[in-house]
């Protein structure tokens, strides 16, 4: 049986529906990350679980207990707030022990619990300081410590790292992961940082406009997004999207015309989707890392970002424009996992494996997603230059060979 069960929870603020019937089951010890654009209801849902907001309808159970109407402190949940919400007038020790003190536990027990949590979080030497004497990372640790001492059944985190700087964030990320392993507790974690989501989650919940778009492991979501929204949401730089029109279908392969592309693009459809009619509007997606140098598409460099270990290229080319991309100009983003010396304006040829393409219909539903098991061939401009039929998913291999040097196929 699942540990935390959210059943058709709705939350209205007056006429505004912030959460629209969300159901979710979380197993014991899972680390569930909720992501979604700002205002999609992540915090609201979390606060409903914590009991800080009464829900409009639905039920929430933890273990066997229906906690839908329970008081916050009776729910066995602890919450870590974005801006820490430490009690400024108490020492770190008192902050962490406050819940136990309110519960009337003996002093020795409180002391032991606090000391243990402090050790876990490596803040023992700060126990007698006031919060304002701590750095951001330390404060965040105290906030987590406050949750730990209560030994709750479920931890709730609302963007706990977003006030920290990049280096500290990645460090705290690692620590939180370790902590989760160590405590084995159920955690629900809200963030808008996809790196956090991808790296920490056992499962990611993508919320959009108060409803769940998709739930799955990070790689499931990355590789097989159910919708355009999820596809665009994960990955940075974003997936390159191109608007196109279906030309014809041959079996489960679709030929799509994309303005600015020298010829039609062939996309192998997923098995479980209906084949769209010719003339239908579709949106094709290709991830920046799936675009490789060499290929039939000739573009020119608009911007190079050398990050040392990887290089981001932003390419522009005649009529070919991405839609809904990070750069307002509709550049094609390319991520290369090595250093390159390219100059702005320089022409480059790129291509991609048709098996790495994504395709969505005009309502944003998935038509095609890449098959990570099959090393595809590089698309080389028009035509059906691959054996008919798409290879079924083979055994998952540890990594996909990259052959960046390979030219037009």
């Amino acid at each position: 049986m699942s540990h935390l069960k959210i059943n058709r929870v709705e939350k209205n603020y007056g006429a505004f529906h912030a959460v629209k019937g969300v159901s979710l089951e979380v197993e014991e010890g899972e680390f569930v990350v909720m992501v979604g654009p700002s205002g999609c209801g992540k915090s609201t849902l979390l606060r409903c679980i914590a009991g800080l907001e009464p829900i409009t309808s639905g039920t929430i159970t933890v273990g066997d207990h229906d906690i839908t109407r329970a008081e916050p402190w009776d729910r066995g949940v602890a919450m870590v707030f974005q801006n820490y919400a430490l009690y400024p007038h108490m020492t770190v020790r008192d902050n962490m022990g406050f819940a136990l003190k309110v519960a009337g536990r003996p002093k020795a027990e409180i002391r032991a619990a606090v000391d243990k949590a402090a050790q876990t979080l490596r803040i023992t030497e700060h126990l007698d300081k006031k919060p304002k004497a701590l750095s951001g990372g330390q404060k965040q640790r105290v906030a987590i410590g406050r949750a730990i001492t209560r030994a709750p059944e479920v931890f709730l985190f609302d963007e706990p790292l977003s006030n920290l700087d990049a280096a500290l964030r990645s460090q705290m990320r690692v620590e939180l992961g370790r902590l989760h392993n160590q405590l084995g507790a159920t955690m629900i974690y809200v963030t808008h940082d996809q790196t956090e989501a991808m790296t920490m989650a056992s499962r990611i919940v993508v919320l959009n406009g108060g409803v769940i778009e998709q739930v799955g492991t990070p790689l499931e979501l990355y590789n097989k997004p159910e919708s355009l929204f999820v596809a665009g949401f994960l990955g940075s730089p974003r997936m390159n999207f191109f608007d196109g029109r279906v030309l014809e279908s041959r079996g489960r392969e679709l030929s799509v015309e994309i303005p600015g592309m020298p010829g039609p693009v062939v996309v192998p459809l997923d098995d479980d989707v209906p084949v769209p009619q010719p003339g239908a509007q579709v949106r094709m997606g290709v991830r920046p890392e799936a675009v490789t140098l060499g290929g039939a598409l000739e573009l020119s460099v608009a911007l190079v970002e050398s990050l040392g270990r990887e290089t981001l290229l932003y390419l522009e080319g005649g009529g070919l424009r991405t839609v809904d991309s990070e750069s307002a100009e509709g550049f094609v983003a390319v991520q290369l996992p090595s250093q390159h010396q390219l100059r702005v304006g320089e022409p480059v040829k790129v291509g991609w494996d048709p098996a790495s393409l994504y395709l969505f219909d005009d309502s944003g539903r998935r038509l095609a997603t890449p098959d990570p098991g099959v090393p595809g061939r590089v698309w080389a401009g028009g035509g059906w230059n691959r054996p008919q039929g798409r290879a079924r998913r083979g055994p998952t291999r540890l990594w996909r060979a990259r052959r960046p040097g390979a030219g037009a196929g």
Partner: protein
Amino acid sequence: MTDMSRQTGATPTWYGRIAASQSMLVLPALVLCTLFIFIPAFLTIVGSFYAFGLTSERWTPVGLANYVKAGNDPIFWVALKNNLIIVFGSIVMQVGIGTVLAAILDRGIGFGQVFFRVVIFMPMVISAVAVALIWLIILDPNIGILNALVKSLGLSPPTRGWLGDPSISIWMVLIVAGWQYTGFMMVLILAGLQAIPKDLYEAAALDGARGMRAFWSITLPNLRNVLLVAVLITTIGGFKVFDLIFVLTGGGPANATQVLGTYIYLQAFTLTNMGYANAIAVVLLAIAVLLGWLQLKASRQS
């Protein structure tokens, strides 16, 4: 105010320039304060070592005699005691009730917040003279509504009158002062309450503290600085009080509501003992400066 330390030790250009050539700009303030505050204060201190009448130009040096006289003057001690009663009474009444009202307005009630806030604050803007006159008539034993009210409740009002009974009158003064200033304290504290982050309460709710427990554990400690300011304003106000008592009771009956402020006035202008009045004024001055210094220290700490 902790920023002061951050600026120290730097070589100034811009701010240094202000310090050098633009420091002239503090002159108007300095001159005005010196002329109308520091020099009179200095003369008051000097005068406290002399005996002279309001209208006489002969100053007789008497050393500390005026202070000795104050020490032996029961009315001086009554006045000081009354100041203390007003200070502590006001703290209890204005800051205490103000805090309760503010807490209720902040979290306890859903609507009508603005209405209540406005109404309760309103007396603050009315002149103390007007306040005293209104209350003077309300408390009048013959035509006042308080007597009428009390009688209509079947009780009997004090026979010597609300302001005529020495054991009651100082408390009536306190009530009138509370009537006027509680709203001010309430708004001050309300502002402090609203500056407390809401998520502290949420964290406390998750920790099991709600209602009164949250009030004691979260609200009050976080309100500490604001309460400190409120207490100090009330205290200084309590020592400076003059208009209200001057109009309401004139210090009477039989000096029962005399405070330092009115006693200075009595000694100086009615009894024309200027030197003695100055000595009392210096006591008041010392208390006020001490409190001002405390306030500065307290706000430095926050």
